[in-house]
């Protein structure tokens, strides 16, 4: 059988295109994040920081919270406020939020800079 090159390669080309599409589809077809907050493991969300401070640490007038990102306090000052807050903020004792996890939250805030206008 004489092989018709153009015909022979078409399905392979199509397969490659399809595979490429599958690989980049999360980017091309990125839609709404339907993952529930309940399922998110980042400590900043899990420990409820986002509730008053926003997902990007931008703060909110209604909750009386100042921005905590992208300009982040030094870690020790940050930790002190989390342990013994002022204003309306409830206290996170070491019993419920250990220092290691607190540091993870702090690191998350430091990484938020990229979301700022």
């Amino acid at each position, binding site marked *: 059988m004489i092989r018709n090159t153009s015909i022979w390669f078409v399905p392979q080309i199509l397969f490659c295109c399809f595979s490429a599409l599958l690989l980049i589809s999360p980017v091309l077809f990125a839609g709404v994040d339907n993952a529930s*907050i*309940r399922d998110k493991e980042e400590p900043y969300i899990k420990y*409820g920081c986002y*509730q008053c401070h926003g997902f990007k640490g931008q703060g*909110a007038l*209604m909750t009386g919270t100042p921005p905590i990102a992208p300009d982040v306090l030094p870690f020790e000052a940050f930790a002190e406020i989390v342990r013994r807050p002022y204003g309306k903020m409830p206290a996170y004792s070491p019993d419920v939020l250990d220092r290691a996890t607190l540091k993870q939250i702090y690191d998350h805030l430091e990484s938020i800079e990229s979301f700022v*206008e």
Partner: protein
Amino acid sequence: MTDQKGNDGIGRRSFVKGVFAAAPLTAVGLSRTTQAGENAQNNSTSTSMPSQHVADMEQGSVEGYTEAQERKYFVNNPGADIMVDALKQLDIEYVASNPGSSFRGLQESIVTYGGNKNPEFLTCLHEESSVGMSHGYAKIAGKPMAIACHGTVGLQHASMALYNAWCDRVPVLVLAGNHIDATQRTNRVAWAHSVQDTAHMVRDFIKWDDTPVSLQHFMESLVRSYKIANTPPFGPVVLTADAHLQEKPAGEKEIHIPRLAPTTPPLGDENSINEAARLLVNSESPVLMADKMARTASGVEHLVELAEALQAPVIDKLGRMNFPTEHYLFQFMRSRELIGRADVILGLEMIDMWGSVNSVADLAEIETKRVARPNAKLISLGVGDLYLKSNYQNFGRYTPVDLSISGDAEASLPYLIEAVKKQVSRAGRSRISDRGKQLRKAYEEIRNKDREAAKLAWHGSPVTTARLCMEIWESIKNRDWSLVSDSIFQSNWPQRLWDMNKHYQFIGGSGGYGVGYGAPAAVGAALANREHGRLSVNIQSDGDLMYAPGILWTAAHHQIPLLSIMHNNRAYHQETMHLQRMALRRQRGVDGNAHIGTLIDKPMIDFAQLAKSMGIWAVGPISNPEELAPALRQAINVVDKGEPAVIDVICEPR
């Protein structure tokens, strides 16, 4: 024995003969070929015609009915027709209602006798929506609409919305159906929908109620209800419209609908007004606060005039659109700082004076602090003390003010302004002017600060409330717009960065903080805005909409143009924060338990599909802020054609 067709003709003929046994036929009445006879022949289960009925037919009137039959079947002049006449006389343009048998008489009179115009019957899918619509409508229209409901189950549904209207001091006229006469209740439904004292359940949060026992009584009470609802402090009223009065003939006696005699708003007394002026003029740092003050453009204009005469900052508590946000004396964002420095504070129609000069920290041990200076002079001007009730505690904590003036603030302001201007001396003018310069500078600083704050996480997803509000502002700023929703959950970005200068551009919130107010109030306010061609904008909380989402159908059905942008944070977020606070206070479950019972997810509600299911153009969900502008353009095109539109946006919580 059967005939050739196989019919048991003997049995059928015997049946028919039995039916007519006692009914001799006449030329006017019947022959064997009448419908009744045919029915009797064709339907072996039909009942025999009562002999009395047949006897009546022998006495037939010209139209074929005896007088007794006419009384039995027809009502030519139902009482409800006159009720509608009264509603027209009061210029009630709408009756919002979920239909019910206990006011079927009234409804029929509205839609047929009344021509379904002034009033028009608005179909709601929940009584809470009916009252919520009326609540929002009244704040724009400056007058109430009526709602009709069952005096039992309907009023029960409506009660939370009535409480909101009561707390918010807004007039709503409730017409509640009932069957007070037990002998007139035709079935078990009517019994379940009957009550001895209709308004008992809601009396603690309405201004007035009555249960008229005659049509004339009804007319007088209807007019009185309207008058009382519209006398400051405004509030809802309930009038029972008994089914008996609606459905029975009005009778021969003429029913008189009395003329409405509106009550003029009470004014602050001259001596107190002069004393208030003296305190304000001689103060170094006066502050003006306004809550549910401005009901009309005059209220806004007069407050501007007073503030400018004193060069005093205004802290708008956002119960209404009290003061233009672009005016340099609008110092809403500096509330704590200004209250802390003030030597004289004037509160206008304040619901929570105590909370404005004190703060309470919600900690395990409640901490109360005075925010105002200990020796600051407090003046209150309003009608709150003239009418309040004790059971529900919406009146707030007792505040020992120095001067308590009873009078409608909006109506009293012109006299206060006159008194202030008279008392300002030449020396005082210079001091006042310097104060104004500082406030102007502070205003610019705070506005710039807010502009910078809005930029934080500008491109973030979920969409920030700042980005949401500013995209909306870009789309509406060159239009005659009206924000028909509260802005507190969006951290008041509209007040912080939009230019509000007309009294209809903001209508405040629910009053009683009963969730479920937002959607129907927005629809009602949009209805009132419709005749003015205004673009009504509703920033809609997801949880609020889910209380009675059928209001979307009402908006579509009645072609109420309304642009709704969902502030979809997928939670009853205030309660999420409350749960987190409890967990932290108790040192347990802080890593996620607050989400149980507060999140609205799993599954995520598709609000665009929800809206489309009710005939509304919708798009979403959108979580990419870059998609907002084109979606808003499309939606506004739809709204400009006279229809509602919904954009679902996944947003930051606050």
